[in-house]
């Protein structure tokens, strides 16, 4: 997982162009989106609802990819897979790690 870059700014540029303020806005939006999604995933996990976990992860994965938060996207993919295979132990680990990945992206955004 560590070989995947945390944030690739080129992705956004290739999607919406070099509109800096717009880019900033999207970054903010993404960060905002992360919060409830992360909690949603955690809550779904606690209720043992694997489909919900998967759906939430998939949802965030879309924007993560669009934003260029590559590691988050990869992590979310892993979460999806674990939810599918009902691997609760790994799922818990990945969800916890997702929190770190999001924090890392936030840091990258600020740079």
């Amino acid at each position, binding site marked *: 997982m560590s070989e995947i870059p945390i944030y690739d700014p080129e992705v956004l540029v290739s999607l919406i162009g070099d509109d800096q303020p717009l880019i900033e806005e999207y970054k903010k939006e993404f960060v905002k989106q992360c*919060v409830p999604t*992360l*909690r949603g*995933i*955690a*809550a779904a*996990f*606690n209720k043992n609802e694997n489909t919900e976990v998967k759906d939430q992860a998939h949802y965030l994965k879309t924007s993560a990819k669009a934003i260029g938060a590559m590691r988050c996207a990869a992590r979310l993919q892993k979460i999806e897979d674990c939810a599918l295979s009902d691997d*609760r*132990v790994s799922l*818990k680990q990945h*969800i*916890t790690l997702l*929190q770190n990945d999001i*924090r890392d992206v936030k840091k990258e955004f600020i740079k």
Partner: protein
Amino acid sequence: MSYEKQTIPVRYDQKDETICLLFSYHGNLLSDVPTDTSHPIYQALNLQLENSVDANLLSDLIGYENFEKLRQASWNFGKPCSIPPCFIEHYGNWDISCYPTKLNDTASILVNFTPSSITTGTQLKNSFQIAADATGIGVWDIRFIDDPRSLTESECFTNLLDNHFIFFSQVAKQILGIEINKPITWRTIWDRIHPDDQVTFEQFFTANIFYDIRLNFDCRIADMQNQYKWYTIRGQTLTDQSGLLLRMSGSLIECTEQKEMIHSVVEAENTKKLALEASGIGVWTGNLDSGYWQWDNNVKRIMNIESASVGKLQDWTQYIHPDDFIELKKGLNQAIAELGQLSVEVRVKDKTRQYKYVHIKGNVTTDVISKVNRIDGICHDTTAHRIAEKRMSELNEALEKTVKKRTMELIQARDLAESGSMAKSNFLAMMSHEIRTPMNGVIGALDLVENTPLNAEQNDLIETAKTSALNLVDILNDILDLNKIEAGKMELEFIPVSISATVDNVINMFTAISESKNVELRLEEDNALPDWVNTDPVRLRQILINFISNAVKFSSTNNEKKGIVSVTAKVDQQHSLGQQKSIVFTVSDNGIGMDKKTVERLFTPFTQAEASTTRKYGGTGLGLAICARLCEMLGGQIEVQSEVGEGSTFTIRLPLWETSHDSDLSAIFGVNVAIIGALEENKVQWLKTRLEQLNADVSIVSNITNDTLSDYEMIILLATGQNESEIDKELSDLPVTEAQKIVLVCPRQFKQSLWAKHPSIQILANNPLTRYSLEKINMKDTQVITENTPHHTEKIVNKAVDKTPIAENLTNSPSTILLVEDNPLNQKLLLKQLSVIGYSADVASDGEIGLQLFSENQYKIVFTDCHMPKMDGYTLSKNIRAFEKEHNTAPVPIIAITGAAMTGDKEKCIESGMSDFLSKPIETHKLKEMVEKWHERNSDL
């Protein structure tokens, strides 16, 4: 092949006249021979060399036969050898010996030539000589010059000795150990004869000469090493026609071996005789052909045979007991028939008419043609042996008897002890049951009274009574516990336990009482504490409760200082390794303290600091003893530090293994949290760390402006206000929206009232703030945070416990509950409790009636006491289950009402088919919970 002639030094020992020459294996002369010499051999060789150099000179010299003999003998046997003196023509007799050797790796012979010592005497070439030589018989021959008989005997003998016209054959000399070449006389030999035998020697010789008595005697002669050897000397004089003594010749043979053999045989014989005599064993033999029997003196003595009689079997057996005689005969015949052995014990009447025991053994053997003809044997007196045997067995029997008796005694003692122990356990169990039953009644009744309208004073009294009753039950439990531990019957569970939850639970037990005593309760929990450890939760709690209880008990607040009880739970990283963590709990107080002597006695049962302590402070005095034991069982240690007047600190170290526990993610996972306000010291940082451990995103906000809080989903307000209204204001002043969740941390006493005003917030008590309470923070809308409270210390909660009736099911409709209980008081109580929660029940006073009622009616729950006359609870349960199986009905929940809550009981309940259990004393709310749990569903067995 050609040999190069080499110059070999010739040994020519002139003194002995022996020369040594080297010849090849083929008889060629290899040594150089001096030409001008008078030595006959050399001359002979030189002569021959003139004829041919390469001829087999050796053979020519000594004759082919001799040469072959020499060569074969030496080379075949690989050792030196000699041949009898041979005659070399013109040169006389020579003794020849040779050694096999190698010269430049070629075989050769070293030949010694010695002039044969026949200076005087006849040359004996006859076959006798040869034969004698061959058989190791030495030959001697003396020539008499004058007739020896003309002299006196002694003179004659002297002459004989010195007569040097004597021939001794080589063999004779050899066997005497004398050098062959040395000329000897009888004197030479005489000097070496054993002094004792010299007499014999002289006698025989003179006797033979003078009286013609055959010369044949043995004597000892010393050899070169001065060892005596035996020789047989034989001889005879020879006369001519006129009767003149000419010569005397004879033989000389070594007979040491034979002599020695004879000696040893004789020795053996003697030894045997002596042994037999000493042992008293008699030897007998019988010739079956001739019917001739022989026996020795011993036999005679044993068998009481008269000396004169010998030869017949009857003589031998005349004094044998008639019965035994038959046996003996039988044995004999059998032995003879089977060519086997005879072995019988017979009684023989001795001279004093006493019977003695004799053992007769024999062996039958055959002669050369396998005809059975003889029997040899022994007999010996075994009387003494018999007596000894008898004594021995008597002794053994006596010994065994004693051992048996002893064993019986020991078994009895053991049984007694066991029954004593069992009696004690039974007594305790019974006692616990007997005490609990009325206690149950008391507590139940008090419980019910609480629900009636009471004034404050009555309430207070009831509370006191209830507390006392519950305390008594506690004491009882303690006693049972200690007893169990001492008896080694305490079993520990090992399940995943949350330390924070346990600490929280225990602390909450003491919040009320410490508040009422105005004692501050402080708590410090390390964030490094493992989430889950494997241990016995009940015992861990017990230990903590005991220590904290004591601390609280012995603390107080007065004018000078405020009573403080502080509890910490930390991880000792240095003593932890991997998953094994060393957890250290400390409980300190600033109370009365203890002196050294007290500290030492502290953990012994029924010891309290002072006799007066019990009166003043209450307690069983067992708590610490139990704790110490429990701690030991958990592998931990307790340390005490105390100073009179200053306070005490108890440190409990426990090794606890961290374990993983499949648990959910935190309820505040990923939540954005802001902490506002202050706590003492670095508690705020601690709080932040803990929340982050729970995966929240935490920020400490020091300066509240309207904006900064909007990003956060949850705000934790650490109230600093000193009273309710101040805190209320802090709350209201918070710039938060409806969507944001608020958690308030404030002193416990304000909880209720603040909650009433702000029903949607979560409130955590901060006196003290437990780690576990933080886990309870969640993002739910309905705020229901209840603290873990035990039954008898939280007044408030007790009141709030829901006792509202579950159903409006009263006596008109048939009861759906069956109650089986023999004690009338308990019956009444339970019925009342059930009616309070809205149920009626049918009552059976023992198991039999209960079973009958069950079979006649439909019930949804059965409550049954465990210990009843006729049919007890377990049996009833089994019967009910069997009944259900027979009638194929769904199983009905059976709840056991147990008095003695010992570990084994639980299993017993489950085994007999029960679904759940309640232990006495039963409180109404517990009963309600149980009914709620089981009434509307069938038990899943």
